[in-house]
């Protein structure tokens, strides 16, 4: 008997379906277990293969996913990863992401149930990102690569099937977001003139990490004309300093995605990452008067009395409460583009390193195979 068979014998752990792709997908649709797209049938064999990359107990929850607070056991996560179309070697990234999202400061309950169009954005760093083939280059946020397409989808399916993020009864997003299908990239570390995200956050360069951000979709910044770092930063700051983002009301960590060519130019003009964040904090602002009179009086003056109680309409509103709250990564291929990614606001990014069960860093995905 396989290691999985015992677990599947417990009540409610498995069900029978006709051995036919259409029948399985009809069942999944009827049960509401999908994101609307067809799924790969999670047979015992496929789920067990997925769990071949999990060296911890398969029935011990790594977290509880709100709003249902379903127990996220590796077994359940593996079934969702199979359904999403993941290769087994992607599984450690999925488990680490769920663990990260269940940290209190991420505010997963808020992110799941809010009316805001927020989705978890996964940024993978370190050697395992490359080993798994996670796209960091052209179209990294778009379609074309299995790892990006299916890792993010596995997270969404777990949020729905384990967490109960059912539209209209658990996920109350007013209109949702295309990022709720998948939202997963690797940072383009090779084209990053600064330290990559995980190193900036205190992890060893050889560590492999996943950082999860409660994020909106990106807003592009097209700048083919600026010839200086200052010019580029000014253009990006102009996009940051817009009304409407949750980040003006809370203590979020909005993300700036530099295209490699923009990053290279800014760094060549002597800006460190800290300098860039300071610039965005000071210049990615808009005058208070661009908000409605009602918004100013009912919210800004009340919520930020020290800053805005008596402020004039020309007082500037920042998009983060501190310079260091801006997150900065480098992503993508050729082209003169960068992007601004506002967040849910009431959330903090969480980073997890991929580790073996003894706590040591995984140097390769094969270190995380079950032995």
């Amino acid at each position, binding site marked *: 008997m396989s290691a999985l068979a015992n677990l599947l014998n417990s009540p409610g752990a498995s069900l029978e379906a006709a051995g036919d792709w259409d029948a399985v997908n009809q069942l999944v649709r009827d049960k509401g277990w999908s994101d609307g797209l067809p799924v790969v049938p999670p047979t015992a064999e496929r789920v067990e293969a997925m769990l071949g990359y999990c060296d911890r107990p398969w029935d011990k929850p790594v977290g509880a996913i709100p709003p*249902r607070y379903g127990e996220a056991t590796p077994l359940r996560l593996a079934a969702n990863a199979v359904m999403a179309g993941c290769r087994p070697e992607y599984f450690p990234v999925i488990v680490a992401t769920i663990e990260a999202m269940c940290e209190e400061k991420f505010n997963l309950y808020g992110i799941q*149930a809010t009316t805001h169009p927020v989705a978890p954005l996964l940024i993978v760093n370190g050697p395992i990102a490359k080993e798994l083939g996670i796209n960091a280059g052209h179209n990294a946020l778009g379609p074309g690569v299995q790892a990006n397409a299916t890792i993010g989808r596995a997270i969404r399916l777990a949020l729905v099937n384990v967490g*109960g993020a059912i539209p209209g009864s*658990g996920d*109350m997003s007013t209109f949702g977001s295309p990022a709720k299908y998948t939202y997963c990239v690797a940072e383009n570390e090779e084209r990053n003139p600064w330290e990559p995200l995980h190193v900036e956050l205190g992890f060893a360069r050889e560590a492999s990490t996943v950082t999860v951000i409660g994020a909106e979709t990106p807003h592009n910044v097209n700048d083919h004309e600026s010839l200086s770092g200052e010019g580029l930063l000014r253009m990006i700051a102009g996009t940051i300093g817009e009304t409407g983002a949750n980040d003006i009301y809370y203590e979020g960590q909005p993300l700036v995605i530099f295209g490699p060519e923009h990053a290279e130019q800014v760094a060549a003009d002597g800006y460190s990452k800290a300098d860039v964040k300071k610039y965005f904090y000071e210049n990615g602002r808009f005058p208070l008067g661009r908000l409605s009179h009602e918004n100013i009086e009912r919210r800004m003056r009340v919520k930020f009395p020290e800053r805005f109680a008596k402020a004039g309409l020309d007082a500037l509103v920042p998009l983060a409460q501190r310079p260091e709250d801006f997150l900065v990564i480098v992503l993508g291929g050729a082209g003169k583009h960068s992007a601004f990614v506002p967040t849910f606001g009431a959330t903090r990014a969480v980073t997890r390193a991929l580790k073996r069960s003894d706590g040591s860093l995984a140097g390769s995905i094969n270190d995380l195979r079950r032995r």
Partner: protein
Amino acid sequence: MAELRRRGLVTAVICSDPFLKLGQNQARTFGVPDLPLLMIKHPLGGISLEDVKARADQVIPKFVDVIRERMK
């Protein structure tokens, strides 16, 4: 709120119409399926203070009923 209910306090959640299912699901999740959900007209955000007071007027009698029921 679920914890307060378990401790025996009079409890209720005020909820606007579209959030009824979420409220019911949460009450079940937290083990208090009988938690009263007192409905008000949606929305609650983006309305005048006058309209907020109207929502309160709508729901106060319902909450009084919850208290009376408890005192029986």
